[in-house]
């Protein structure tokens, strides 16, 4: 009941704001390039749904969103970006999930004077020396959740970790991030193949090492496979990982194998603030499933955009950028602010997989890193 009242109040407030400002500036056209088919489609669909929910709730008619599917292929993402910039004449781009696609698209569109708001991918190359004044990341820098996992492992008393990740740029960022904060020893360090589905060999190595804990970054289906095989292997060392393998979309497929595992995330559905409560309720009502962290990122990205559109003209790049930098919107994460390189400075939580009724989900058990920025911010000069 309280949630509902708050929701009505929020939307009333937003609508009043809209009524005051919607006619003041030119309409804004947003191009969303995201993954809607193929193996990683669940993530793109969540980002899109979260984003569109925020647009719908804002009631604004001056924001038009064009959505295209990149099929998780860099070449297609590049073609779509060209089409959106040249023939659709969009003002703002967003939506890309994967770092390799972001690297193919973002530098070129920001160089053409467009704004890019990232709802997910945060490769280190775009956070440091390669940063751009028109590039904003609303989710995290890639290393963040792994750094938090390292910090959590310290506080949980782990002294000797076995760490593994796929052999590709984000996998390397992951192990680097964990090692940056973990102060214990490494019992082993493995790069697996990207897309690998069988981890029997790695689990045997974990068993043979004298590790006291395991850290892994295996997004999507890779994580499902690893967790199921780990649970049936008889190895019972504690596991720590970033939220990506414990996300709402895949937890049901992992099943009880994930129960009790601690993972790090900047968002969870039980963060208690009015925006988040209203978001979780309305997302459930609209789509009939629980939101994932990707959905929360899409939702926040759209609200950041709406906050800037409400107070400035997108055609005036300098004032629009200032409005984005101010990040004057209610985030599902509570307070939200950007660091000097346009990446979030935020709290990252440790959460634990639990079962609520028939549904596997997460519960926050503590804070891993407070007001955390990233390791590359100082290298960024606009």
């Amino acid at each position, binding site marked *: 009941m309280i949630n509902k009242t708050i929701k009505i109040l929020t939307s009333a407030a937003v609508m009043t704001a809209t009524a005051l400002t919607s006619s003041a500036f030119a309409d804004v056209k947003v191009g969303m390039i995201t993954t809607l088919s193929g193996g990683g*489609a669940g993530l793109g669909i969540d980002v899109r749904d979260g984003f569109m929910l925020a647009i719908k709730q804002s009631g604004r008619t001056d924001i038009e969103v064009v959505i295209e599917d990149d099929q998780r292929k860099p070449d297609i993402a590049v073609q779509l970006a060209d089409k959106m910039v040249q023939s659709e004449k969009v003002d703002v781009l967003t939506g890309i999930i994967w770092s390799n696609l972001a690297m193919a698209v973002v530098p070129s569109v920001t160089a053409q004077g467009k704004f890019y708001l990232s709802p997910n991918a945060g490769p280190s190359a775009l956070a440091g020396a390669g940063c751009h004044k028109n590039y904003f990341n609303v989710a995290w820098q890639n290393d963040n959740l792994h750094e938090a996992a390292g910090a959590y492992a310290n506080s949980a008393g782990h002294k000797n970790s076995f760490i593994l990740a796929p052999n590709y740029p984000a996998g390397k960022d992951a192990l680097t991030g964990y090692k940056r904060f973990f102060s214990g020893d490494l019992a082993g360090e493995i790069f697996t193949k990207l897309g690998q589905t069988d981890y029997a060999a790695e689990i045997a190595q974990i068993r043979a090492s004298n590790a006291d804990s395991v850290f892994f970054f295996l997004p999507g289906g890779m994580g499902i496979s690893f967790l199921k095989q780990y649970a049936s292997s*008889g190895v019972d060392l504690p596991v720590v990982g970033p939220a990506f393998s414990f996300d709402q979309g895949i937890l049901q497929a992992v099943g009880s194998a994930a129960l009790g595992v601690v993972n790090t995330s900047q968002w969870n559905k039980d963060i208690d603030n009015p925006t988040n409560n209203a978001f979780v309720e309305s997302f459930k009502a609209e789509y009939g499933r629980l939101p994932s962290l990707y959905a929360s990122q899409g939702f926040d990205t759209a609200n950041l955009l709406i906050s800037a559109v409400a107070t400035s003209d997108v055609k005036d790049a300098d004032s629009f950028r200032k409005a984005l930098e101010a990040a004057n919107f209610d985030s599902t994460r509570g307070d939200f602010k950007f660091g000097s390189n346009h990446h979030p400075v935020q709290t990252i939580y440790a959460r634990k997989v639990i079962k609520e009724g028939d549904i596997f989900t997460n519960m926050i058990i503590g804070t891993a890193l407070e007001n955390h920025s990233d390791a590359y911010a100082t290298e960024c000069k606009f």
Partner: protein
Amino acid sequence: MGAANSCTQTCGVFMSFALFAEQVLNGLQSGIMLFVMAAGLTLIFGVMGLINLAHGSLYMVGAFAAAAAAAWTGSFLLALIAALIGAALVGMFVEMLVIRRLYDRDHLDQVLATFALILIFSEGTRFFFGSFPLFLDVPKVIAGPINLPIGIEYPVYRLIIIGVGLCVALGLWLLISKTRLGVQIRAGKNDREMIAALGVNISALYTFVFAIGAGLAGLAGALVGAIQSVQVGMGEPVLILAFVVIVIGGIGSIKGAFIGAILVGLTDTLGGIFLPELFKLFMEGSIATSLGSALASMLIYILMAVILVCRPQGLFGVEG
């Protein structure tokens, strides 16, 4: 650092025998699953001369059928049967609707048409089951590990997979070499006009062979899906490996597929473990793991290249 050092020394190249034996079992297990997948592919290519890229989709169909059946009935055995029969039926249907028209076309047309089938299957599966991975798990009784001699702890389910795979191999061998149907299949491979002239219904034979191949792919998908993830697009990576297997083994040869699959499984598993360890002997840890795993992922293709240089027709292929 003490712990890390002692590990590089003990679990480095002088890995304990139990660990080595466990890794060999892992290699065997992945090889045998590859065989179940590749057997259908090589039969279809050998008998009908058809390159079927959609074989990976049938693997996916099997896994989804199993997940749906398991969710509905709660029985893993029924799920496996559903996978086998479901994939075989879908295979039969696709053969009669599409594949049949491709036998007389050249390989490029076949590749194009079966690639289209991959897209249709993927998006069709997404339409019916959604984009999120499905749940399929091994029953509790066989989920845990078992203690084998010489101190190996090994998951029971993986041993069962090895057993099922060996049964499939035996069954196929009996079918091909001991039955009348096997004689027809072998004859169809050599001269399809002649056996059609002798009164064998070649079109029904082809449908049957295709259905067997599809059913086996589905069974492999379900068996493997239970310990991995059941999701759209799960078949394509396996398809590539299955092609490597049949090229190594010799196209059309079941025996070749068996030996090839075991070779690929062992090379892949053992290479992934030992190469990084080997590299650690003469370079720094992080670089060694990164370089070693990069090279390990190329190892099966190097194996294929070497075998093709020495025996262009594959290990058990017939020349010409």
